[in-house]
């Protein structure tokens, strides 16, 4: 749906409400409002945290979705799926700094099996997008699996739309249109070291959905990350903690640690909190997690969730 089409439908829908008695007080839903509440269609699985052990991305992904009751719980036929992966640095897959191409490909295959209309894999690399797409191996994998892949680098107009946040640190951000308009939004971060925030996972990964990241660094970075998480809650966060660097992040290369885990959760804070413990950090020590939990984005105490180990 392009902007013009959206405005047209919204206007007709708005005018249409006047025809119905008692409905004219209802407001037409704006994208930011719809997305502030996140995808609420799957409330039954909201408190689950699935931890899959293994080293084979494909089978781990399948196991994880089985434990969540199947991918059809998340992806309905005809849905548009957006996957925020991490291919923001030009590193080879074996350097464990970027989303494993096998994992991305496996996720696309599952989505296609569930009948998704369109699957887009996106990121906003902070180094050259062409080199990143090529070197990380993700472009090849995604295209072969039947998905679309592109970077958000070339143009505010094309990929971003302003969203009001009214937070303490962020008032308004230019946020990814793809994510706001998607039926299903999978956040697919990789667990790795980060110079500035110590560790990067789901919430930090979503910084790649914003046009002006430089601003985040000039202000209160942690609060910005936390407030950004209120924009759209991922349908599911799949934290890749199979292999990751423990130093020199996010750019790498660095020493690689094998955690051999894949963490699934609809609660983005809980997933990150578990990831933090895996990385050897106390979740409450990560400011952005603490602030996000305070803002009601999710549960900091992941152990309170219904944790399933597979």
């Amino acid at each position, binding site marked *: 749906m392009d902007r013009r089409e959206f405005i047209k439908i919204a206007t007709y829908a708005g005018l249409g409400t006047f025809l119905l008695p008692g409905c004219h007080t209802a407001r037409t839903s704006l994208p930011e409002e719809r997305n502030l509440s996140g995808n609420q269609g799957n409330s039954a699985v909201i408190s689950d945290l699935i931890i899959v052990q293994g080293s084979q991305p494909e089978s781990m992904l399948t196991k994880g979705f089985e434990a969540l009751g199947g991918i059809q719980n998340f992806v309905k036929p005809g849905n548009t799926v957006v996957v925020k992966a991490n291919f923001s640095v030009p590193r080879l897959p074996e350097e464990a700094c970027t989303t494993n191409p096998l994992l991305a490909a496996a996720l696309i295959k599952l989505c296609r099996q569930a009948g998704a209309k369109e699957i887009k894999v996106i990121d906003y690399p*902070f180094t*050259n997008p*062409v*080199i990143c797409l090529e070197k990380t191996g993700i472009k090849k994998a995604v295209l072969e699996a039947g998905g679309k892949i592109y970077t958000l680098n070339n143009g505010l107009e094309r990929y971003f739309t302003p969203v009001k946040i009214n937070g303490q640190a962020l008032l308004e951000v230019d946020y990814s249109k793809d994510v706001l308009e998607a039926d299903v939004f999978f956040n697919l971060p990789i667990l790795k070291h980060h*110079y500035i925030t110590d560790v990067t996972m789901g919430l930090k990964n979503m910084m790649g959905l914003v046009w002006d990241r430089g*601003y985040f660094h000039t202000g209160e970075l942690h609060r910005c990350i936390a407030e950004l998480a209120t924009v759209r809650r991922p349908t599911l966060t799949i934290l890749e903690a199979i292999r990751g660097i423990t130093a020199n992040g*996010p*750019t790498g290369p660095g020493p690689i640690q094998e955690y051999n885990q894949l963490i699934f959760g609809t609660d983005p804070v809980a997933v990150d909190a578990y990831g933090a413990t895996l990385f050897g950090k106390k979740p409450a020590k990560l400011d952005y997690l603490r602030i996000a939990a305070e803002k009601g984005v999710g549960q900091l105490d992941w152990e309170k969730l219904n944790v399933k180990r597979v």
Partner: protein
Amino acid sequence: MRLLTLALWRRIIPCFMLVAVIILFWRHQYPLPADANALLWFSRLDPILLLAEWRSTGVLPGWFWLPFVMIAITLAGGRLFCGWLCPLGGLLAQLPRRYSRLQSIPWLYSSRYAWLLFTLMLLLAGSNWPVFLTPFHLLSEELFRLWKGTVPWLLAGILLSGIFIYPRFWCNHICPTGLLLAAMARWRSGRLVVDSVCSHCGVCTKVCPTHSLQIMAGLVAEDCMVCGRCWQACPQEALTWQSRAVKKADDYSSAGLSRRQFFKGGFAVFVAGAGWPLLQPSSAPAVLRPPGAVAEEEFLARCSRCSRCVKVCPSQCLIPMPIEAGITAFLTPSIIPRQAKCELCLLCQEVCPTMAIESVPLQQVKIGLAILDERRCLVWAEKKLCLLCREQCPVHAIEADEYNRPYVNNKLCVGCGGCENGCPLKQAAIVVRPI
């Protein structure tokens, strides 16, 4: 039938070379396909490039035999390269032959070897502008202009001269490669010769794209590119291919140097020797050069401004310098980190035909050195949690002290400009300076 095939090949082969060069230049992009290297090898057919490389490095490169093959071919049969293999010639060969008074300006024609001598002296004095004028380099640069969407002035000028004077005007008067090969072709052994059955009808001169048939003398000059047009057009079939041994008597072109020519040549050498130092800037401009670029002064001498590095650069961080930077630096690639940073893919090293950008491993790359202004840095001055420079640095040259404040490790810094590019301040607090 045989004649028809020749006419066909005459179009097909030069056009193929032109299209091949365009495609190869287009393929100069990340990831660099292996076949894009062919452009480098095509360029190496040129003896001028060999001369330039020998001047700058002092050693003969491994591919020295390639231009020597060209020289051997030229000595055997004349300017076959210009007529059949040159991509720019391939373009000019498609132009129609018109009559123009301009084509027979005697002083222009007779001073062309003085011009060749001038360019060669310029080359040896330490300037690669003559290399820029050779077909593969010039065409690359002009194709880059087209690719960028700007006007290729020089190419337009060459085409106009081809239309309004005669098709191969550029090849016979300006192109150093063409002139060098023409000079050698004076001693060629096989050549077209006008027989005594010639009726002086002048049809051959009308079809000759090189203006090389001195029909009154009944001879074919050294500019002949062996296209065969005259041979086909002659109603008397007076043109025959003969070897030097047979027709030595008709050889007028290898006559000795006249006094006038000698003075002209001497004047060209003098102008080149005296003029070039005047064009040199008193101090090298402080700009960042591509990774692996040789020292600034030598870089200016070696760079042929072919723009291939600029084309291949995936981040488009290489920017040809404007004319305001001075004639010596004009069109040479430079990096402005605030606009785009070097991604250290080092493809520019692979495509550079003149050794201006040498193949050096990443560990030895030193584009410049980052200098941090602690008074303005967000972390140092305002205790903000920035460190974007550290995140951007691909070689981990930005380290942090116990208060997490950044500083530059000079040993590790390669000067890619990532930090300067990433600094969120309006005026970057970290700036890469050339060494």
